[in-house]
């Protein structure tokens, strides 16, 4: 049992989450069970605790206990939970078995958002310091980097310069400007990558081929606090990028192949003076405007595409990847289901950063089955986490296919400009 001050503190944390949507989510579920079949974890490991309603009920049972009359007079009616060790353990199990893919939103007749409800569980876990320490540490590191980046900028710039030959191998060096310009005032596009070179080189080559007036951000796009469920830290992490973009006066902020970063920057970082788009949208636009072209002969074999949940159903980037793929190959096979109904890969919600290899593999059996059924040689996607997860699924389930990143495929198929 938690002591009284802690319980009061947790109730306060809970209340901070009770906006209009959350009150509706918590009061309205009729436990019809439609969402049960939406979750890839449940489809792979059929246990009640892995159903969207099973997860949301943990929070709902705490809500009824502390915020509803029946919690006082007839707690048995809704089998309420208390904020004790058992309640918090259940909250952890619910929140960190959910990738936040929001596939269940499309199954629920009311559109209840389990990811949002899990936000309450995650905040309560932070309140009792039971949050995943890896995500907490990574969030803090991102924030610290935002405060001290000027001190480490020399080594960063040197590391970036070392990547330039690889970019120049894919697209010619632009005239009168560096191959990878970093944080340049007056740029039209600010590209926000991840920490690995693989997230910079292909995008840099594509933007150079399109003769874009772009620059690279000092920061990485990933927002660990979004997975941790800490709204304040999330805002500080995305705030670094917003501040940089506004300082440079860019027109557009382009986010690397990362679903969560795209969604956070597009929809969850407030109003800004610039437009936010995914690198996938930018590449599709370049192809559409004829600023770049790709050589369809470069890619051989059959190809399918995995819609990253946060990029597709949660950010609306659904047709652009297909447009790009249409330029790369005619040998494209859709996964079934696809687009907004696509199965989550099982790597979202910070699970990749958390490790959790065994759970990720077991809980994504349905994904492996779906991919295997497509009978293709290559699967591509546009999200770092999805890419890692698909690579591991490929190995674990012996799918025998190659996992590719869409941007990387485009960069290696750039026509005329490739060396």
């Amino acid at each position, binding site marked *: 049992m938690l002591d009284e001050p802690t319980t009061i503190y947790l109730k306060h944390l809970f209340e901070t989450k009770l906006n209009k949507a*959350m009150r509706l989510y918590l*009061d309205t579920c009729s436990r019809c*069970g439609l969402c049960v079949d939406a979750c890839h974890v449940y489809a792979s490991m059929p246990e009640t605790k892995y159903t969207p309603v099973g997860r949301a009920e943990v929070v709902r049972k705490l809500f009824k206990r502390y915020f509803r*009359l029946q919690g006082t007079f007839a707690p048995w009616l809704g089998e309420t939970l208390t904020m004790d060790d058992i309640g918090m353990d259940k909250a952890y199990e619910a929140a960190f078995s959910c990738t936040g893919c929001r596939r269940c939103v499309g199954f629920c007749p009311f559109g209840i958002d389990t990811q949002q409800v899990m936000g309450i569980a995650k905040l309560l876990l932070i309140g009792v310091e039971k949050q995943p320490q890896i995500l907490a540490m990574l969030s803090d590191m991102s924030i610290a980097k935002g405060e001290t980046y000027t001190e480490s900028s020399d080594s960063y710039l040197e590391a970036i310069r070392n990547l330039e030959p690889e970019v120049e191998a894919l697209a010619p060096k632009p005239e009168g400007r560096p191959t990878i310009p970093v944080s340049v005032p007056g740029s039209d596009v600010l590209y926000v990558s991840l920490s690995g070179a693989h997230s910079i080189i292909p995008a840099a080559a594509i933007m150079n081929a399109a003769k874009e007036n772009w620059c690279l951000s000092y920061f990485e796009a990933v927002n660990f606090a979004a997975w941790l469920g800490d709204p304040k830290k999330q805002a500080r992490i995305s705030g670094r990028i917003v501040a940089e973009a506004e300082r440079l006066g860019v027109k557009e902020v382009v986010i690397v192949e990362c679903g969560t970063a795209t969604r956070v920057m597009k929809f*969850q970082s407030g109003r800004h003076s610039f437009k936010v788009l995914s690198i996938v949208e930018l590449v599709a636009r370049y192809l559409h405007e004829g600023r770049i072209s790709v050589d369809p002969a470069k890619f051989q074999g059959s190809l399918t595409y995995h819609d990253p949940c946060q990029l597709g159903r949660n950010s609306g980037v659904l047709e652009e990847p297909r447009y790009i793929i249409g330029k790369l190959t005619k040998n494209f096979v859709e996964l079934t289901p696809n687009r907004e109904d696509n199965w989550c890969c099982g790597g979202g919600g910070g699970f990749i950063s958390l490790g959790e290899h065994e759970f990720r593999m077991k809980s994504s059996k349905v994904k492996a089955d779906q991919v295997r059924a497509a009978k293709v040689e290559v699967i591509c996607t546009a999200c770092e986490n999805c890419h890692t997860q698909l690579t591991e699924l490929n190995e674990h389930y012996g799918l025998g296919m190659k996992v590719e990143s869409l941007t990387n495929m485009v960069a290696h198929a750039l026509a005329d400009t490739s060396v």
Partner: protein
Amino acid sequence: MDPQSVSKAAAAVSGATQAAAAAVSGATPVVVHSGFARFMDGVYYVIMVPMVYVALAVMVVGIIVKIVSIVSSPAPAFTLKTFPARRHPMLAALGDTFAMPQIRKRQPVFWLFLVWFHVGILLLILGHFDLFPNLNIMPAASRHMLGAGFVGVSVTVPAFYFLARRFRGEDRHISVPSDYLLLLLLIFTFLLGDMISWGNSWTARGFVMTKADFKQYFGILASFSFADPKTVLPGSHYHFIVLHLFLAELFMMILPFSKIVHTFFSLPLNILRRK
């Protein structure tokens, strides 16, 4: 008129019923019997008149308080819509709310029962409006309620289906006691309603009570005369009517605090998903 005198007046009108009851319980001392009968008369009266107003008030105030608590909460900090975005988000939300495509696509049998049930509920409410003194949904001369019993069946059968599906598979595990109790409450209310609207005509002499009798009872409620409804609802079916009213009042009072609030919140929730 105070309830006591109303009760006495009622006893005079429904004398036949009282006499019959006395004959059956002949062995019981008259004093004890009449005391119990008076007590039950009192309980019946409370259920049939004052509690109707209380239940209605609890329901209306409860819903208003709930809606105000939601409207006065801060709006979500960011959009919660899912994609692909709809060209007409409001129309899509209305479609989600009233046509339930998510269910039709994945559980068509459940969807059929849900549509049957919800249309039934609408007709049921309409049918009860027919009982108001100055309203006629059915022709004034008709002795039947709206649908002549079919409306009642249209809510009862799906309610049994909803209960049955909670006993199988994952639906059983995700259900909590209030889910079963709420359905049982509805089922008993419906069954009693079926008995009153339909079963009540299954006698050799036709209707025991007619719609005209119910209209008189609603007249008492609408006029706030606080007269004893027993005076206008003669016969042994009165017990069923009292029980029907009691369960319906329970339902009305529970409504704002139960998942039945989806009546009001389904549309705003679907707007969140689409807009």
